[in-house]
Protein backbone atom coordinates (compact mmCIF):
# COMPACT_ATOMS: atom_id res chain seq x y z
CA UNK A 1 0.00 0.00 0.00
CA UNK A 2 1.35 3.33 -0.94
CA UNK A 3 -1.40 5.55 0.30
CA UNK A 4 -1.19 8.29 2.79
CA UNK A 5 -3.64 7.68 5.53
CA UNK A 6 -2.53 10.43 7.79
CA UNK A 7 -5.53 12.41 6.65
CA UNK A 8 -8.01 9.89 7.81
CA UNK A 9 -6.14 9.11 10.95
CA UNK A 10 -7.20 12.58 11.77
CA UNK A 11 -4.89 12.69 14.69
CA UNK A 12 -2.07 14.32 12.88
CA UNK A 13 -3.78 17.55 13.67
CA UNK A 14 -2.62 20.22 15.94
CA UNK A 15 -4.32 20.49 19.30
CA UNK A 16 -7.77 21.80 18.81
CA UNK A 17 -7.35 24.89 20.84
CA UNK A 18 -9.82 27.62 21.23
CA UNK A 19 -9.14 31.05 19.94
CA UNK A 20 -9.91 32.87 23.09
CA UNK A 21 -7.82 33.95 25.90
CA UNK A 22 -7.08 37.01 27.87
CA UNK A 23 -5.94 39.88 25.75
CA UNK A 24 -3.70 39.11 22.89
CA UNK A 25 -2.91 35.60 23.98
CA UNK A 26 -5.13 34.04 21.37
CA UNK A 27 -2.78 34.55 18.52
CA UNK A 28 0.35 33.63 20.35
CA UNK A 29 -1.19 30.57 21.90
CA UNK A 30 -3.17 29.42 18.92
CA UNK A 31 -1.87 26.08 17.76
CA UNK A 32 0.76 26.41 15.11
CA UNK A 33 -1.61 26.65 12.18
CA UNK A 34 -2.00 23.20 10.68
CA UNK A 35 1.22 22.48 8.83
CA UNK A 36 0.95 24.90 5.98
CA UNK A 37 -0.30 23.15 2.88
CA UNK A 38 2.11 22.87 0.03
CA UNK A 39 0.94 24.96 -2.85
CA UNK A 40 -0.19 23.18 -5.97
CA UNK A 41 2.41 25.01 -8.00
CA UNK A 42 5.09 23.90 -5.57
CA UNK A 43 4.16 20.25 -5.95
CA UNK A 44 3.91 20.62 -9.70
CA UNK A 45 7.21 22.31 -10.31
CA UNK A 46 9.06 19.86 -8.12
CA UNK A 47 8.41 17.11 -10.66
CA UNK A 48 11.23 17.19 -13.20
CA UNK A 49 9.19 15.21 -15.72
CA UNK A 50 6.27 17.60 -15.50
CA UNK A 51 8.50 20.60 -15.99
CA UNK A 52 10.32 18.94 -18.86
CA UNK A 53 7.16 18.10 -20.75
CA UNK A 54 5.67 21.49 -20.01
CA UNK A 55 8.72 22.87 -21.77
CA UNK A 56 8.29 20.40 -24.65
CA UNK A 57 4.67 21.39 -25.07
CA UNK A 58 5.46 25.09 -24.88
CA UNK A 59 8.20 24.52 -27.45
CA UNK A 60 5.85 22.69 -29.80
CA UNK A 61 3.23 25.41 -29.50
CA UNK A 62 5.82 28.09 -30.10
CA UNK A 63 7.22 26.29 -33.13
CA UNK A 64 3.73 25.74 -34.49
CA UNK A 65 2.99 29.43 -34.11
CA UNK A 66 6.27 30.81 -35.37
CA UNK A 67 7.68 27.87 -37.31
CA UNK A 68 5.81 28.41 -40.55
CA UNK A 69 7.35 31.86 -40.70
CA UNK A 70 10.86 30.44 -40.74
CA UNK A 71 10.27 26.88 -41.82
CA UNK A 72 9.82 27.66 -45.48
CA UNK A 73 6.98 27.21 -47.91
CA UNK A 74 5.04 23.97 -47.40
CA UNK A 75 3.76 23.90 -50.97
CA UNK A 76 6.88 24.88 -52.89
CA UNK A 77 7.69 21.92 -55.12
CA UNK A 78 11.03 22.86 -56.60
CA UNK A 79 13.12 20.32 -54.64
CA UNK A 80 14.09 16.80 -55.65
CA UNK A 81 11.34 14.42 -54.54
CA UNK A 82 11.54 11.64 -51.93
CA UNK A 83 14.80 12.75 -50.36
CA UNK A 84 15.56 11.24 -46.95
CA UNK A 85 16.41 13.66 -44.15
CA UNK A 86 19.58 15.58 -44.85
CA UNK A 87 21.23 18.77 -43.75
CA UNK A 88 19.42 20.64 -46.48
CA UNK A 89 16.00 19.17 -45.77
CA UNK A 90 16.02 18.22 -42.11
CA UNK A 91 13.00 15.97 -42.47
CA UNK A 92 13.49 15.10 -46.12
CA UNK A 93 11.08 15.80 -48.98
CA UNK A 94 7.86 14.16 -50.14
CA UNK A 95 6.77 12.65 -53.43
CA UNK A 96 6.14 16.09 -54.92
CA UNK A 97 9.47 17.39 -53.75
CA UNK A 98 8.03 19.57 -51.02
CA UNK A 99 10.17 20.25 -47.95
CA UNK A 100 8.77 17.95 -45.27
CA UNK A 101 9.84 20.06 -42.30
CA UNK A 102 7.77 22.93 -43.60
CA UNK A 103 4.80 20.64 -44.07
CA UNK A 104 5.10 19.12 -40.60
CA UNK A 105 5.36 22.57 -39.04
CA UNK A 106 2.29 23.70 -40.91
CA UNK A 107 0.41 20.56 -39.98
CA UNK A 108 1.16 21.12 -36.32
CA UNK A 109 -0.50 24.48 -36.44
CA UNK A 110 -3.87 23.02 -37.35
CA UNK A 111 -3.54 19.98 -35.07
CA UNK A 112 -2.75 22.10 -32.03
CA UNK A 113 -5.41 24.64 -32.92
CA UNK A 114 -8.00 21.88 -33.11
CA UNK A 115 -6.79 20.32 -29.85
CA UNK A 116 -6.91 23.49 -27.80
CA UNK A 117 -10.12 24.80 -29.35
CA UNK A 118 -11.96 21.54 -28.73
CA UNK A 119 -10.72 21.44 -25.13
CA UNK A 120 -11.78 25.05 -24.55
CA UNK A 121 -15.22 24.38 -26.00
CA UNK A 122 -15.58 21.18 -23.98
CA UNK A 123 -14.63 22.99 -20.82
CA UNK A 124 -17.07 25.81 -21.44
CA UNK A 125 -19.91 23.50 -22.31
CA UNK A 126 -19.08 21.03 -19.55
CA UNK A 127 -18.67 23.64 -16.84
CA UNK A 128 -21.90 25.42 -17.72
CA UNK A 129 -24.05 22.33 -18.07
CA UNK A 130 -22.35 20.35 -15.31
CA UNK A 131 -22.52 23.13 -12.75
CA UNK A 132 -26.13 23.96 -13.52
CA UNK A 133 -27.12 20.32 -13.19
CA UNK A 134 -25.11 19.61 -10.06
CA UNK A 135 -25.77 22.86 -8.22
CA UNK A 136 -29.43 23.45 -8.96
CA UNK A 137 -30.46 19.82 -8.83
CA UNK A 138 -34.12 18.92 -9.18
CA UNK A 139 -35.74 18.99 -12.57
CA UNK A 140 -32.84 20.90 -14.16
CA UNK A 141 -30.50 18.17 -13.03
CA UNK A 142 -32.75 15.39 -14.28
CA UNK A 143 -33.08 16.95 -17.73
CA UNK A 144 -29.41 17.86 -18.07
CA UNK A 145 -28.27 14.47 -16.83
CA UNK A 146 -30.49 12.83 -19.42
CA UNK A 147 -28.79 14.98 -22.06
CA UNK A 148 -25.33 14.10 -20.74
CA UNK A 149 -26.23 10.41 -20.59
CA UNK A 150 -27.52 10.56 -24.13
CA UNK A 151 -24.34 12.10 -25.49
CA UNK A 152 -22.37 9.54 -23.52
CA UNK A 153 -24.32 6.56 -24.72
CA UNK A 154 -24.25 7.44 -28.40
CA UNK A 155 -21.24 6.02 -30.16
CA UNK A 156 -19.64 9.45 -30.22
CA UNK A 157 -16.51 8.59 -32.15
CA UNK A 158 -18.40 6.74 -34.87
CA UNK A 159 -20.87 9.57 -35.22
CA UNK A 160 -18.08 12.14 -35.25
CA UNK A 161 -16.54 10.20 -38.08
CA UNK A 162 -19.77 10.07 -40.06
CA UNK A 163 -20.67 13.66 -39.35
CA UNK A 164 -17.22 14.89 -40.24
CA UNK A 165 -17.26 12.79 -43.38
CA UNK A 166 -20.62 14.13 -44.44
CA UNK A 167 -20.30 17.74 -43.31
CA UNK A 168 -16.52 17.89 -43.15
CA UNK A 169 -13.92 19.75 -45.12
CA UNK A 170 -13.77 22.65 -42.66
CA UNK A 171 -11.66 22.92 -39.51
CA UNK A 172 -14.41 24.77 -37.67
CA UNK A 173 -16.95 22.05 -38.44
CA UNK A 174 -14.50 19.42 -37.19
CA UNK A 175 -13.88 21.36 -34.00
CA UNK A 176 -17.61 21.72 -33.41
CA UNK A 177 -18.26 18.02 -34.01
CA UNK A 178 -15.42 16.91 -31.75
CA UNK A 179 -16.51 19.26 -28.99
CA UNK A 180 -20.06 17.98 -29.23
CA UNK A 181 -18.97 14.39 -28.83
CA UNK A 182 -16.36 15.01 -26.12
CA UNK A 183 -17.83 17.54 -23.70
CA UNK A 184 -19.57 15.00 -21.49
CA UNK A 185 -16.38 14.08 -19.66
CA UNK A 186 -15.96 17.55 -18.21
CA UNK A 187 -19.71 17.90 -17.64
CA UNK A 188 -19.91 14.70 -15.64
CA UNK A 189 -17.02 15.65 -13.40
CA UNK A 190 -18.28 19.20 -13.00
CA UNK A 191 -21.72 17.94 -12.10
CA UNK A 192 -20.40 15.53 -9.49
CA UNK A 193 -18.21 18.23 -7.94
CA UNK A 194 -20.96 20.85 -7.97
CA UNK A 195 -23.42 18.41 -6.43
CA UNK A 196 -20.90 17.49 -3.75
CA UNK A 197 -20.07 21.10 -2.94
CA UNK A 198 -23.75 22.10 -2.98
CA UNK A 199 -24.19 19.78 0.01
CA UNK A 200 -21.35 21.36 1.95
CA UNK A 201 -21.88 23.68 4.85
CA UNK A 202 -20.42 26.75 3.23
CA UNK A 203 -22.97 26.72 0.46
CA UNK A 204 -25.79 26.42 2.97
CA UNK A 205 -24.18 29.13 5.04
CA UNK A 206 -24.04 31.41 2.02
CA UNK A 207 -27.63 30.62 1.18
CA UNK A 208 -28.83 31.43 4.65
CA UNK A 209 -26.76 34.61 4.57
CA UNK A 210 -28.96 35.61 1.65
CA UNK A 211 -26.59 35.38 -1.29
CA UNK A 212 -28.32 34.79 -4.62
CA UNK A 213 -27.81 31.39 -6.16
CA UNK A 214 -25.75 32.57 -9.12
CA UNK A 215 -23.40 34.37 -6.77
CA UNK A 216 -22.87 31.23 -4.68
CA UNK A 217 -22.29 29.26 -7.84
CA UNK A 218 -19.67 31.71 -9.01
CA UNK A 219 -17.89 32.39 -5.77
CA UNK A 220 -18.21 29.19 -3.73
CA UNK A 221 -18.94 26.33 -6.09
CA UNK A 222 -16.93 26.98 -9.24
CA UNK A 223 -13.57 27.86 -7.66
CA UNK A 224 -13.66 24.74 -5.51
CA UNK A 225 -14.81 22.52 -8.36
CA UNK A 226 -12.16 23.63 -10.82
CA UNK A 227 -9.18 21.38 -10.00
CA UNK A 228 -10.56 18.13 -11.44
CA UNK A 229 -12.14 20.06 -14.29
CA UNK A 230 -8.79 21.53 -15.24
CA UNK A 231 -7.17 18.10 -15.17
CA UNK A 232 -9.89 16.63 -17.39
CA UNK A 233 -9.70 19.55 -19.78
CA UNK A 234 -5.96 19.09 -20.12
CA UNK A 235 -6.47 15.45 -21.01
CA UNK A 236 -9.13 16.50 -23.52
CA UNK A 237 -6.52 18.45 -25.49
CA UNK A 238 -4.64 15.21 -26.05
CA UNK A 239 -7.69 13.18 -26.93
CA UNK A 240 -8.90 15.83 -29.36
CA UNK A 241 -5.56 15.87 -31.15
CA UNK A 242 -5.62 12.07 -31.38
CA UNK A 243 -9.15 11.98 -32.75
CA UNK A 244 -8.54 14.82 -35.19
CA UNK A 245 -5.43 13.12 -36.49
CA UNK A 246 -7.41 9.91 -36.91
CA UNK A 247 -10.07 11.69 -38.93
CA UNK A 248 -7.48 13.40 -41.07
CA UNK A 249 -5.74 10.07 -41.59
CA UNK A 250 -9.00 8.72 -42.99
CA UNK A 251 -9.05 11.63 -45.39
CA UNK A 252 -11.68 13.56 -43.52
CA UNK A 253 -10.66 17.13 -42.96
CA UNK A 254 -9.77 20.40 -44.51
CA UNK A 255 -7.97 19.56 -47.74
CA UNK A 256 -6.40 23.01 -47.75
CA UNK A 257 -4.96 22.75 -44.26
CA UNK A 258 -2.97 19.55 -43.97
CA UNK A 259 -2.59 18.30 -40.42
CA UNK A 260 -0.30 15.63 -38.99
CA UNK A 261 -3.03 13.07 -39.57
CA UNK A 262 -3.42 13.86 -43.24
CA UNK A 263 0.35 13.79 -43.71
CA UNK A 264 0.24 10.23 -42.37
CA UNK A 265 -2.56 9.47 -44.79
CA UNK A 266 -0.40 10.70 -47.66
CA UNK A 267 2.60 8.81 -46.32
CA UNK A 268 1.07 5.34 -46.20
CA UNK A 269 1.57 4.42 -49.87
CA UNK A 270 5.27 5.20 -49.49
CA UNK A 271 5.91 3.15 -46.36
CA UNK A 272 8.15 0.83 -48.36
CA UNK A 273 10.42 3.52 -49.67
CA UNK A 274 10.11 6.65 -47.53
CA UNK A 275 9.95 5.83 -43.83
CA UNK A 276 10.47 9.43 -42.77
CA UNK A 277 7.15 10.51 -44.21
CA UNK A 278 5.29 8.32 -41.74
CA UNK A 279 7.68 8.69 -38.83
CA UNK A 280 7.84 12.42 -38.17
CA UNK A 281 4.19 13.49 -38.16
CA UNK A 282 3.31 10.55 -35.91
CA UNK A 283 6.20 11.36 -33.61
CA UNK A 284 4.90 14.92 -33.34
CA UNK A 285 1.41 13.77 -32.43
CA UNK A 286 2.85 11.38 -29.90
CA UNK A 287 5.08 13.99 -28.28
CA UNK A 288 2.34 16.58 -27.97
CA UNK A 289 -0.23 14.14 -26.63
CA UNK A 290 2.28 12.62 -24.21
CA UNK A 291 3.23 16.07 -22.94
CA UNK A 292 -0.38 17.02 -22.43
CA UNK A 293 -1.19 13.77 -20.63
CA UNK A 294 1.86 13.97 -18.39
CA UNK A 295 0.90 17.52 -17.59
CA UNK A 296 -2.58 16.34 -16.72
CA UNK A 297 -1.18 13.66 -14.43
CA UNK A 298 1.14 16.12 -12.72
CA UNK A 299 -1.68 18.64 -12.32
CA UNK A 300 -3.82 15.91 -10.83
CA UNK A 301 -1.15 15.12 -8.25
CA UNK A 302 -0.64 18.79 -7.53
CA UNK A 303 -4.29 19.82 -7.31
CA UNK A 304 -5.60 16.68 -5.70
CA UNK A 305 -3.07 16.03 -2.99
CA UNK A 306 -4.90 13.23 -1.21
CA UNK A 307 -4.02 10.72 -3.90
CA UNK A 308 -0.51 9.56 -4.40
CA UNK A 309 0.95 11.99 -1.95
CA UNK A 310 3.09 9.48 -0.17
CA UNK A 311 5.00 7.35 -2.57
Amino acid at each position, binding site marked *: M*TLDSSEKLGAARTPDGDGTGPGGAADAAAPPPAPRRETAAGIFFRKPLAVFFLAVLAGMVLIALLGPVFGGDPVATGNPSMQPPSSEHLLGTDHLGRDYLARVLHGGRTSLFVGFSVAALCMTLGVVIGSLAGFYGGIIDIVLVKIIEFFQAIPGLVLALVAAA*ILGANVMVIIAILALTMWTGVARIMRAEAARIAQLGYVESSRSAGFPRWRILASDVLPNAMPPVIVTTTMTVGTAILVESGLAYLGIGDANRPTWGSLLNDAQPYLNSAWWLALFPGLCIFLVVLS*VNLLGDALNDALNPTIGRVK
Partner: protein
Amino acid sequence: MRPALIHYGRLLASSALLLLVVITVLFLLLEIAPGDPLQAMLGDAPASEEFRDQMVATFGLDQPMWQRYLTYVGNVLTGDLGESIVSRRSVTELIMIRAPYTLIIAVIALIISTIVCLVLGAIAARTRRPWLDGLISGGSLTFFSIPNFWLGLMLIWLFAVVLDWLPASGANAHGEPGIAWQYMILPIVATATSQLALKTRVMRSSTIEALGQDYIDTARSKGLSSDRVLYRHGLPNALLPMITIVGLSVGNLLAGSTLIERVFGWPGMGLLMVDAINEKDNMVVLGVTIVMTVMILIANILTDIVYGLVDPRLRARFTRSGRSAA
Protein backbone atom coordinates in the same frame (compact mmCIF):
# COMPACT_ATOMS: atom_id res chain seq x y z
CA MET B 1 -37.59 -9.89 -9.00
CA ARG B 2 -39.91 -7.13 -10.10
CA PRO B 3 -37.56 -4.21 -9.49
CA ALA B 4 -35.00 -5.95 -11.65
CA LEU B 5 -37.54 -6.43 -14.45
CA ILE B 6 -38.51 -2.78 -14.29
CA HIS B 7 -34.87 -1.77 -14.33
CA TYR B 8 -33.96 -3.84 -17.36
CA GLY B 9 -37.21 -2.88 -19.07
CA ARG B 10 -36.25 0.77 -18.72
CA LEU B 11 -32.75 0.05 -19.94
CA LEU B 12 -34.04 -1.72 -23.04
CA ALA B 13 -36.53 1.02 -23.77
CA SER B 14 -33.97 3.78 -23.43
CA SER B 15 -31.54 1.85 -25.63
CA ALA B 16 -34.20 1.50 -28.29
CA LEU B 17 -34.94 5.22 -28.07
CA LEU B 18 -31.29 5.99 -28.37
CA LEU B 19 -31.02 3.87 -31.48
CA LEU B 20 -33.95 5.70 -33.03
CA VAL B 21 -32.35 9.06 -32.25
CA VAL B 22 -29.08 7.94 -33.80
CA ILE B 23 -30.89 6.79 -36.95
CA THR B 24 -32.69 10.11 -37.12
CA VAL B 25 -29.53 12.14 -36.64
CA LEU B 26 -27.82 10.15 -39.37
CA PHE B 27 -30.71 10.61 -41.71
CA LEU B 28 -30.80 14.37 -41.07
CA LEU B 29 -27.04 14.59 -41.55
CA LEU B 30 -27.45 13.12 -45.00
CA GLU B 31 -30.18 15.58 -45.81
CA ILE B 32 -28.18 18.65 -44.91
CA ALA B 33 -24.97 17.29 -46.37
CA PRO B 34 -23.45 19.23 -49.23
CA GLY B 35 -22.96 17.08 -52.28
CA ASP B 36 -25.45 14.90 -54.06
CA PRO B 37 -25.28 11.13 -53.83
CA LEU B 38 -26.69 10.81 -57.32
CA GLN B 39 -23.95 12.99 -58.69
CA ALA B 40 -21.36 11.08 -56.75
CA MET B 41 -22.71 7.81 -58.05
CA LEU B 42 -22.69 8.87 -61.62
CA GLY B 43 -19.28 10.47 -61.33
CA ASP B 44 -18.19 12.58 -64.26
CA ALA B 45 -19.54 10.19 -66.86
CA PRO B 46 -22.13 11.77 -69.14
CA ALA B 47 -25.55 10.33 -68.36
CA SER B 48 -28.83 10.68 -70.15
CA GLU B 49 -31.84 12.23 -68.39
CA GLU B 50 -33.55 8.88 -68.71
CA PHE B 51 -30.82 7.08 -66.88
CA ARG B 52 -30.82 9.70 -64.11
CA ASP B 53 -34.56 9.39 -63.65
CA GLN B 54 -34.27 5.65 -63.49
CA MET B 55 -31.67 5.93 -60.73
CA VAL B 56 -33.76 8.45 -58.81
CA ALA B 57 -36.77 6.16 -58.96
CA THR B 58 -34.79 3.08 -57.95
CA PHE B 59 -33.38 4.73 -54.88
CA GLY B 60 -36.50 6.68 -53.99
CA LEU B 61 -34.71 10.01 -54.25
CA ASP B 62 -37.84 11.65 -55.62
CA GLN B 63 -40.00 11.05 -52.58
CA PRO B 64 -40.47 13.71 -49.90
CA MET B 65 -38.05 13.61 -47.03
CA TRP B 66 -40.42 12.42 -44.28
CA GLN B 67 -41.60 9.57 -46.45
CA ARG B 68 -38.07 8.43 -47.12
CA TYR B 69 -37.38 8.74 -43.41
CA LEU B 70 -40.33 6.59 -42.40
CA THR B 71 -39.55 4.04 -45.05
CA TYR B 72 -35.95 3.95 -43.93
CA VAL B 73 -36.74 3.55 -40.24
CA GLY B 74 -39.25 0.84 -41.05
CA ASN B 75 -36.72 -0.99 -43.18
CA VAL B 76 -33.97 -0.70 -40.57
CA LEU B 77 -36.21 -2.15 -37.90
CA THR B 78 -36.93 -5.15 -40.12
CA GLY B 79 -33.24 -5.64 -40.75
CA ASP B 80 -33.15 -4.09 -44.21
CA LEU B 81 -30.45 -1.44 -44.33
CA GLY B 82 -31.04 -0.54 -47.96
CA GLU B 83 -28.93 -1.01 -51.00
CA SER B 84 -25.46 0.21 -51.80
CA ILE B 85 -25.63 2.88 -54.43
CA VAL B 86 -22.21 1.89 -55.73
CA SER B 87 -22.19 -1.88 -55.76
CA ARG B 88 -25.96 -2.31 -55.96
CA ARG B 89 -25.79 -4.95 -53.25
CA SER B 90 -27.80 -5.21 -50.07
CA VAL B 91 -26.10 -3.25 -47.27
CA THR B 92 -27.14 -5.87 -44.71
CA GLU B 93 -25.42 -8.51 -46.79
CA LEU B 94 -22.25 -6.42 -47.18
CA ILE B 95 -22.08 -5.90 -43.44
CA MET B 96 -22.75 -9.57 -42.71
CA ILE B 97 -19.75 -10.46 -44.80
CA ARG B 98 -17.50 -7.87 -43.16
CA ALA B 99 -18.64 -7.98 -39.52
CA PRO B 100 -16.85 -11.23 -38.57
CA TYR B 101 -13.51 -9.71 -39.59
CA THR B 102 -14.05 -6.76 -37.28
CA LEU B 103 -15.44 -8.83 -34.44
CA ILE B 104 -12.62 -11.34 -34.35
CA ILE B 105 -10.02 -8.58 -33.93
CA ALA B 106 -12.18 -6.71 -31.45
CA VAL B 107 -12.94 -9.73 -29.28
CA ILE B 108 -9.37 -11.00 -29.17
CA ALA B 109 -8.01 -7.51 -28.44
CA LEU B 110 -10.66 -7.00 -25.77
CA ILE B 111 -9.84 -10.27 -24.03
CA ILE B 112 -6.08 -9.79 -24.16
CA SER B 113 -6.16 -6.17 -23.05
CA THR B 114 -8.58 -6.90 -20.20
CA ILE B 115 -6.61 -9.78 -18.77
CA VAL B 116 -3.24 -8.07 -19.07
CA CYS B 117 -4.53 -4.76 -17.69
CA LEU B 118 -5.79 -6.45 -14.53
CA VAL B 119 -2.40 -7.96 -13.87
CA LEU B 120 -0.34 -4.89 -14.75
CA GLY B 121 -2.64 -2.44 -12.99
CA ALA B 122 -2.69 -4.45 -9.80
CA ILE B 123 1.08 -4.90 -9.84
CA ALA B 124 1.68 -1.19 -10.41
CA ALA B 125 -0.71 -0.27 -7.63
CA ARG B 126 0.73 -2.44 -4.93
CA THR B 127 4.40 -2.96 -5.73
CA ARG B 128 6.89 -1.54 -3.28
CA ARG B 129 9.44 -1.11 -6.04
CA PRO B 130 9.11 2.41 -7.39
CA TRP B 131 10.79 1.49 -10.68
CA LEU B 132 8.22 -1.20 -11.43
CA ASP B 133 5.28 1.14 -10.84
CA GLY B 134 7.12 3.79 -12.85
CA LEU B 135 7.67 1.37 -15.70
CA ILE B 136 4.06 0.25 -15.86
CA SER B 137 2.54 3.69 -15.30
CA GLY B 138 4.99 5.36 -17.65
CA GLY B 139 4.51 2.66 -20.27
CA SER B 140 0.75 2.89 -20.14
CA LEU B 141 0.86 6.67 -20.34
CA THR B 142 3.21 6.43 -23.31
CA PHE B 143 1.08 3.99 -25.27
CA PHE B 144 -2.02 5.91 -24.23
CA SER B 145 -0.51 8.88 -26.07
CA ILE B 146 0.42 7.09 -29.30
CA PRO B 147 -2.15 7.32 -32.08
CA ASN B 148 -3.02 3.67 -32.68
CA PHE B 149 -3.05 4.04 -36.46
CA TRP B 150 0.45 5.47 -36.39
CA LEU B 151 1.50 2.61 -34.17
CA GLY B 152 0.04 0.37 -36.88
CA LEU B 153 2.03 2.12 -39.59
CA MET B 154 5.23 1.78 -37.57
CA LEU B 155 4.50 -1.91 -36.93
CA ILE B 156 4.08 -2.46 -40.67
CA TRP B 157 7.26 -0.59 -41.40
CA LEU B 158 9.21 -2.62 -38.84
CA PHE B 159 7.74 -6.11 -39.20
CA ALA B 160 6.68 -6.08 -42.84
CA VAL B 161 9.08 -3.70 -44.55
CA VAL B 162 12.32 -3.87 -42.56
CA LEU B 163 12.16 -7.36 -41.03
CA ASP B 164 9.76 -8.89 -43.54
CA TRP B 165 8.34 -11.27 -40.92
CA LEU B 166 4.66 -10.55 -41.29
CA PRO B 167 2.37 -9.47 -44.11
CA ALA B 168 1.59 -5.77 -44.29
CA SER B 169 -1.97 -5.78 -45.41
CA GLY B 170 -5.13 -7.80 -45.99
CA ALA B 171 -6.61 -10.82 -44.23
CA ASN B 172 -5.34 -13.60 -46.47
CA ALA B 173 -2.88 -14.17 -49.28
CA HIS B 174 -3.91 -12.77 -52.69
CA GLY B 175 -7.16 -11.39 -51.30
CA GLU B 176 -8.72 -14.81 -50.90
CA PRO B 177 -11.62 -15.03 -48.47
CA GLY B 178 -11.01 -16.27 -44.94
CA ILE B 179 -8.34 -15.25 -42.49
CA ALA B 180 -4.77 -16.43 -42.25
CA TRP B 181 -3.36 -16.08 -38.73
CA GLN B 182 -0.22 -14.18 -39.74
CA TYR B 183 -2.40 -11.40 -41.03
CA MET B 184 -4.18 -11.02 -37.70
CA ILE B 185 -1.16 -10.42 -35.53
CA LEU B 186 -0.34 -6.81 -36.30
CA PRO B 187 -3.94 -5.53 -36.26
CA ILE B 188 -4.51 -7.25 -32.93
CA VAL B 189 -1.29 -5.87 -31.46
CA ALA B 190 -2.12 -2.34 -32.61
CA THR B 191 -5.69 -2.53 -31.31
CA ALA B 192 -4.88 -4.20 -28.01
CA THR B 193 -2.00 -1.87 -27.17
CA SER B 194 -4.00 1.33 -26.95
CA GLN B 195 -6.84 -0.49 -25.19
CA LEU B 196 -4.38 -1.94 -22.72
CA ALA B 197 -2.80 1.44 -22.01
CA LEU B 198 -6.11 3.05 -21.09
CA LYS B 199 -7.35 0.15 -19.01
CA THR B 200 -4.11 -0.29 -17.11
CA ARG B 201 -4.24 3.33 -16.03
CA VAL B 202 -7.78 2.89 -14.73
CA MET B 203 -7.00 -0.43 -13.05
CA ARG B 204 -4.00 1.05 -11.28
CA SER B 205 -5.89 4.01 -9.88
CA SER B 206 -8.90 1.96 -8.92
CA THR B 207 -6.70 -0.55 -7.08
CA ILE B 208 -4.93 2.27 -5.27
CA GLU B 209 -8.29 3.71 -4.36
CA ALA B 210 -9.59 0.37 -3.09
CA LEU B 211 -6.45 -0.21 -1.04
CA GLY B 212 -6.93 3.17 0.60
CA GLN B 213 -10.37 2.32 1.93
CA ASP B 214 -11.07 1.77 5.60
CA TYR B 215 -12.08 -1.87 5.24
CA ILE B 216 -8.52 -2.61 4.18
CA ASP B 217 -7.51 -1.61 7.71
CA THR B 218 -10.03 -4.09 9.06
CA ALA B 219 -8.55 -6.79 6.83
CA ARG B 220 -5.06 -5.91 8.00
CA SER B 221 -6.21 -6.00 11.61
CA LYS B 222 -7.13 -9.65 11.08
CA GLY B 223 -3.49 -10.39 10.49
CA LEU B 224 -4.04 -11.39 6.86
CA SER B 225 -0.89 -11.28 4.75
CA SER B 226 -0.66 -8.32 2.40
CA ASP B 227 -1.25 -10.68 -0.54
CA ARG B 228 -4.48 -11.91 0.96
CA VAL B 229 -5.56 -8.39 1.75
CA LEU B 230 -4.99 -7.54 -1.90
CA TYR B 231 -6.68 -10.60 -3.41
CA ARG B 232 -9.62 -10.91 -1.04
CA HIS B 233 -10.41 -7.28 -0.31
CA GLY B 234 -8.53 -4.90 -2.60
CA LEU B 235 -9.01 -6.47 -6.01
CA PRO B 236 -12.70 -7.48 -5.72
CA ASN B 237 -13.53 -3.85 -4.98
CA ALA B 238 -11.12 -2.51 -7.59
CA LEU B 239 -12.69 -4.71 -10.27
CA LEU B 240 -16.11 -3.10 -10.03
CA PRO B 241 -15.19 0.10 -11.88
CA MET B 242 -13.28 -2.02 -14.40
CA ILE B 243 -16.53 -3.63 -15.52
CA THR B 244 -17.77 -0.25 -16.63
CA ILE B 245 -14.51 0.58 -18.34
CA VAL B 246 -14.42 -2.68 -20.26
CA GLY B 247 -18.01 -2.13 -21.34
CA LEU B 248 -17.30 1.39 -22.50
CA SER B 249 -14.22 0.28 -24.38
CA VAL B 250 -16.39 -1.57 -26.92
CA GLY B 251 -17.35 1.79 -28.39
CA ASN B 252 -13.70 2.75 -28.68
CA LEU B 253 -12.82 -0.57 -30.24
CA LEU B 254 -15.45 -0.28 -32.95
CA ALA B 255 -14.70 3.35 -33.73
CA GLY B 256 -11.00 2.55 -33.72
CA SER B 257 -11.57 -0.34 -36.12
CA THR B 258 -12.05 2.17 -38.94
CA LEU B 259 -8.50 3.40 -38.43
CA ILE B 260 -6.87 0.04 -37.80
CA GLU B 261 -8.63 -1.62 -40.75
CA ARG B 262 -7.61 1.21 -43.02
CA VAL B 263 -3.98 0.85 -41.89
CA PHE B 264 -3.87 -2.89 -42.41
CA GLY B 265 -6.30 -3.13 -45.29
CA TRP B 266 -8.29 -5.44 -43.07
CA PRO B 267 -11.61 -6.14 -44.77
CA GLY B 268 -13.93 -5.51 -41.84
CA MET B 269 -16.83 -3.16 -41.21
CA GLY B 270 -14.50 -0.26 -40.51
CA LEU B 271 -12.84 -0.46 -43.89
CA LEU B 272 -16.24 -0.90 -45.50
CA MET B 273 -17.28 2.34 -43.88
CA VAL B 274 -14.12 4.23 -44.82
CA ASP B 275 -14.45 3.14 -48.45
CA ALA B 276 -18.13 4.04 -48.45
CA ILE B 277 -17.34 7.49 -47.06
CA ASN B 278 -14.87 8.09 -49.84
CA GLU B 279 -17.32 6.88 -52.45
CA LYS B 280 -20.22 8.79 -50.87
CA ASP B 281 -22.04 5.47 -50.66
CA ASN B 282 -24.29 6.86 -47.95
CA MET B 283 -26.55 3.86 -47.45
CA VAL B 284 -23.51 1.82 -46.50
CA VAL B 285 -22.19 4.54 -44.17
CA LEU B 286 -25.55 4.66 -42.40
CA GLY B 287 -25.81 0.90 -42.27
CA VAL B 288 -22.41 0.38 -40.68
CA THR B 289 -23.02 3.15 -38.18
CA ILE B 290 -26.33 1.63 -37.16
CA VAL B 291 -24.85 -1.84 -36.75
CA MET B 292 -22.00 -0.43 -34.66
CA THR B 293 -24.50 1.51 -32.56
CA VAL B 294 -26.50 -1.64 -31.92
CA MET B 295 -23.35 -3.49 -30.90
CA ILE B 296 -22.37 -0.70 -28.51
CA LEU B 297 -25.84 -0.63 -27.00
CA ILE B 298 -25.75 -4.38 -26.50
CA ALA B 299 -22.39 -4.01 -24.79
CA ASN B 300 -23.87 -1.34 -22.50
CA ILE B 301 -26.76 -3.58 -21.53
CA LEU B 302 -24.41 -6.51 -20.89
CA THR B 303 -22.22 -4.27 -18.73
CA ASP B 304 -25.22 -3.24 -16.70
CA ILE B 305 -26.29 -6.84 -16.20
CA VAL B 306 -22.83 -7.97 -15.14
CA TYR B 307 -22.50 -5.06 -12.75
CA GLY B 308 -25.87 -5.85 -11.23
CA LEU B 309 -24.80 -9.45 -10.71
CA VAL B 310 -21.43 -8.66 -9.21
CA ASP B 311 -22.12 -5.71 -6.91
CA PRO B 312 -24.13 -6.94 -3.94
CA ARG B 313 -25.39 -3.43 -3.26
CA LEU B 314 -27.18 -3.45 -6.62
CA ARG B 315 -28.04 -7.13 -6.57
CA ALA B 316 -29.74 -6.74 -3.24
CA ARG B 317 -31.77 -3.84 -4.52
CA PHE B 318 -33.14 -6.02 -7.25
CA THR B 319 -33.70 -9.28 -5.48
CA ARG B 320 -34.16 -8.57 -1.82
CA SER B 321 -35.66 -5.14 -1.73
CA GLY B 322 -37.23 -4.29 1.57
CA ARG B 323 -35.03 -6.71 3.43
CA SER B 324 -32.46 -4.21 4.40
CA ALA B 325 -32.47 -3.55 8.10
CA ALA B 326 -33.43 -0.24 9.56
